[in-house]
């Protein structure tokens, strides 16, 4: 049909048609390029957020370990409070909490399982929601909180 029209009108207007086709093709290419750039930027932002959360989880765990270590009465069966970091997190949009599950231990020791959980999950943190879990024994012989041993450290 186009060919017929071209035949009817010779080559009049063909330059304009070609220019418009070129313009359309260019628009599609530019839209694709900008799409790539946008996706790349979004991936960078998501990566930064995810990395921040990973370090937040680790930081919360380390801080809670240090806290339980020196807090008398914590880490014993029936007595182990949850810990919420007071410092500013890398990713404040995803706050975390550390839940403590103590278990019986020999005299002079405390044995706990710490689970880092998003604060949106109710305490105690269910296994499926724990982002990081550590099995820790505190040694109180000689002096309180003399040493500690990390028996396991498992990420989700």
């Amino acid at each position, binding site marked *: 049909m186009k060919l017929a029209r071209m035949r009817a009108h010779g080559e009049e207007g063909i330059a304009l048609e070609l220019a418009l086709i070129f313009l359309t093709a260019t628009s599609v290419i530019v839209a694709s390029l900008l799409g790539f750039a946008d996706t790349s930027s979004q991936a960078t932002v998501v990566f930064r957020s995810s990395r921040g959360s990973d370090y937040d989880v680790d930081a919360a765990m380390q801080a809670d370990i240090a806290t339980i270590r020196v807090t008398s009465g914590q880490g014993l069966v029936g007595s182990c409070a949850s810990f919420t970091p007071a410092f*500013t997190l890398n990713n404040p949009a995803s706050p975390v909490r550390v839940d403590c599950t103590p278990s019986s231990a020999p005299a002079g020791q405390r044995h706990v399982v710490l689970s880092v959980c998003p604060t949106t999950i109710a305490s105690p943190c269910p296994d499926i929601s724990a982002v990081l879990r550590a099995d820790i024994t505190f040694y109180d012989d000689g002096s309180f909180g003399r040493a500690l041993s990390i028996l396991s450290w498992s990420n989700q």
Partner: protein
Amino acid sequence: MHRRARRRDANPSLDDLGSTLVEVLVALVIASGAVFVLIGGMSALFASALQNRQTTTSGVVARSYAEALEVAVAQSSAANGVAWCSTSYSVSSPVPPNGYTVAPGYGACPATGAATPQFQTVVITATAPNLTSEKLLIVVRRS
């Protein structure tokens, strides 16, 4: 009969007429605009790629330093016992790529009281050649 058709009938060679000057100029303007837009889009893509690459590299630099710092603190803690905390550790981290810098910002050391949790916050800042920076907060503690 249509005027153009009459003109073709009078002179058949007019059927082979190409574009008029106005058409060519309009087409040229449109095509030029398209080329400029294309170049602009590619420039934006390249700039974005460069930015993202430098941001990612800064993140790697910060993470490398964080891992090295944790080792340094563990060694300091083992060597110095209770007086483990410092505002400057001897960190053996990999040398950042050319143009990148990394600097730690140490939080205050906790009091040495027996009931004070012994941990310290550290904010590691890695700066890229384009001066964008990545910050990473970590916690180190007495081992």
